[in-house]
């Protein structure tokens, strides 16, 4: 006898299923992680306690987790707004670089002559434009030529990475600090263009900003014509055509919005943490992690905040786990947990949409 699994689409999806899916994904991933830890000779309870304490108990831990969560919220929104329309812009990483390039230009060139509020605004606005500009080929090719956006956005990510590296390592560009000759570094943006932090903590107005943006995206999606049109185009192009909604423009707009949010992630990073175009410190895979965040949050803008804080904590705890007294947990473990959670999140999605039937069948049917 062998077992066969059969999926039947659920007729009714209850609202709490959508909470159940990510929660069970996280629990399942933690369980798998626990087994892995135990096999490797660690005490899972102690490791998870250390993880939790490092990221969520002390004020320092919490603020550091929030500091990591800040860009993840933005990239999560960037991915989420596109993904919920079945537009797979996986290029938030590259759009973040483009936003950082444009934003740091504003911070260096305009920052010193502007009062702080305007200087910060200049950085953020330019970063949004940078991200949009970078997403423009993806958006235009998708909307008007039907080119696969996964491929174009991924390719452009590499373009963005190499452009950023070129500007600092490969050329004496405007962004490169000429005062430092021994190793190429980005020029610092003007102090006026910094997003202030709260006291001596590493989180600050950048977090406030991205949370506000998340609420704005949520309101846009839920309460406006733009959001409505995006929902229709995303879930049924035929219905959009039938209703006279200009699908191409909506697709174009959604991908540009996604790119702009990705760019803003770069702008916020530059204004609140990096303070320069730092090809290394910006290339942390924040854009790709945003996809995980968005998927776990089922593309809900407010859910993205929660998930980003959780994953930010997980990421932040990596260092704490490595310095645990007596039980040094390798950095890979926290990365592995992230990967496992994504995997389970995708799996859980199937359980939300479908009922699972186990069917016994004989091995031989002759």
């Amino acid at each position, binding site marked *: 006898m062998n077992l066969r699994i059969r999926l039947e689409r659920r007729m009714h999806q209850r609202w709490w299923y959508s909470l159940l899916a990510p929660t069970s994904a996280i629990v399942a991933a933690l369980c798998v992680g626990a087994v892995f830890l135990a096999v490797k000779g660690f005490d899972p309870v102690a490791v998870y306690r250390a993880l939790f304490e*490092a990221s969520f108990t002390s004020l*320092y831990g919490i603020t*550091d987790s929030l*500091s*990591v969560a800040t860009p993840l919220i933005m990239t999560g929104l960037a991915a989420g707004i596109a993904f919920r329309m079945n537009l797979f812009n996986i290029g938030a990483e590259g759009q973040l670089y483009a936003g950082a390039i444009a934003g740091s230009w504003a911070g260096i060139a305009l920052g010193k002559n502007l009062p702080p509020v305007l200087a910060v605004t200049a950085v953020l606005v330019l970063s949004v434009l940078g991200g949009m500009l970078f997403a423009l080929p993806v958006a235009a090719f998708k909307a008007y030529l039907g080119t696969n956006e996964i491929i174009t956005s991924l390719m452009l990510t590499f373009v963005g990475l190499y452009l950023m*590296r070129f500007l600092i*390592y*490969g050329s004496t560009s405007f962004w490169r600090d000429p005062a*430092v*000759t*021994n*190793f*190429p570094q980005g020029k610092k943006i003007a102090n006026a263009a910094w997003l202030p932090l709260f006291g*001596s903590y*590493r989180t600050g107005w950048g977090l406030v900003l991205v949370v506000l943006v998340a609420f704005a995206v949520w309101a846009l999606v839920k309460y406006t014509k733009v959001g409505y049109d995006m929902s229709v185009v995303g879930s049924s192009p035929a219905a959009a055509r039938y209703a006279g909604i200009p699908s191409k423009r909506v697709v174009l707009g959604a991908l540009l919005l996604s790119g702009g949010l990705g760019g803003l992630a770069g702008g916020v*990073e530059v204004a609140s*943490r*990096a303070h320069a175009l*730092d090809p*290394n*410190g*910006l*290339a*942390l895979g924040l854009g790709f992690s945003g996809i995980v965040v968005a998927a776990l949050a089922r593309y809900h803008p407010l859910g993205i905040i929660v998930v980003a804080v959780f994953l930010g904590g997980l990421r*932040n705890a990596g*260092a*704490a786990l*490595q*310095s645990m007294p007596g039980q*040094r947990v*390798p*950095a*890979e473990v926290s990365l592995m947990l992230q990967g496992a959670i994504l995997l389970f999140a995708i799996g859980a999605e199937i359980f939300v949409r479908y009922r699972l039937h186990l069917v016994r069948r004989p091995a031989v049917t002759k």
Partner: protein
Amino acid sequence: MTRRRRAGIVLAAAAALVAACSSNTAGSGGNATGGTSGTGTAAKVKVAFVYVGPVGDAGWTKKHDDGRKELEAALGDKIQTTFLESVPEGAESEATFERLAREGNKVIFATSFGYMDQMLAVAAKYPDVVFMHATGYKTSANMGTYFGAAEEARYLSGMAAGSATKSNKLGYVAAFPIPEVIRGINAFTLGAQKVNPNVTVDVVWTSTWFNPTTEKEAAQSLLNKGIDVIGQHQDTPGPGEAAEAAGAKWVGYNDDMSRFAPKAWLTAPMWDWGPLYIKTVQDVMAGTWKTGQYYGTMADGLVKLAPVAESVPADVRAAIEDTQKKIISGEFAPFTGPISKQDGSSAYAAGAKATLEELLKMDYFVKGVNGSASGKG
């Protein structure tokens, strides 16, 4: 993705001296105060290491971790070490340094350039903790830097390379066009020319510190041009593997990597961080640690040459041995005139020696190097 950021020191010796003097008033580390823990056991001094990559089994991070182990072996019960692998450089590292300081570490070593600003920021918040940053140039009352004169060993490795070539064409897989890498290429070239005046060195830039594929491909492109000895500045044995497959020779870096390409292997410049780590921690425990910019040499034992392969002729091995003794004794320095620049103009007249400051700012190739010192092409 490239991870490593290292650089030489920009300040002149005089500036370092000023910094060192000013630090006297700041008072550092203190003698094993036991941190904040309320336990009654004899408090160990906690020492932390922050690495940019995984320790792995060869290369830059491995050598630092070897140094950490030497430290543990030397000071035993009196200390407790922690190391963090794969900590990304840039903004996110600040939280890591602060966490280590808050966990009661008294000395924190960071081994990559890109931690500089973050470490400086945290150092300002924790004046009782000693911060040591490899390859950087920013210091403060409780933050010092350390690095070393790899060019001395590179000169010696160049001698081995110059003797091994049949085509008189050497190649160099270079990381980034920065003074540290440029003076390594120049030292390698000068060493090679010492035993074989006809050699030229072709340079190819990878813009990587650790990318086996890219570096292997770069080496291959050199080998395709008829080059038969490869030097390198990155952390991977990729170029060595390419040389081994092509039947060429290879000078590695960081560590004895002969097992990756036993036939191609000639030798390599190496680091030994152990003595520095031991001395730093001892100084902190004794309350005698001072900030400053440490630039170690072969004489200090920080820089070493890996064992030279048997394939190198005995007379050349003897000459290398002899030159190494002279470098250690101070009788000889690799950058001693006459040295011509790539374009034929004179860099140093006969007998003139490059100063440390000049070395740390070197931005030109010497004669015999083919390629652009600004990284083009």
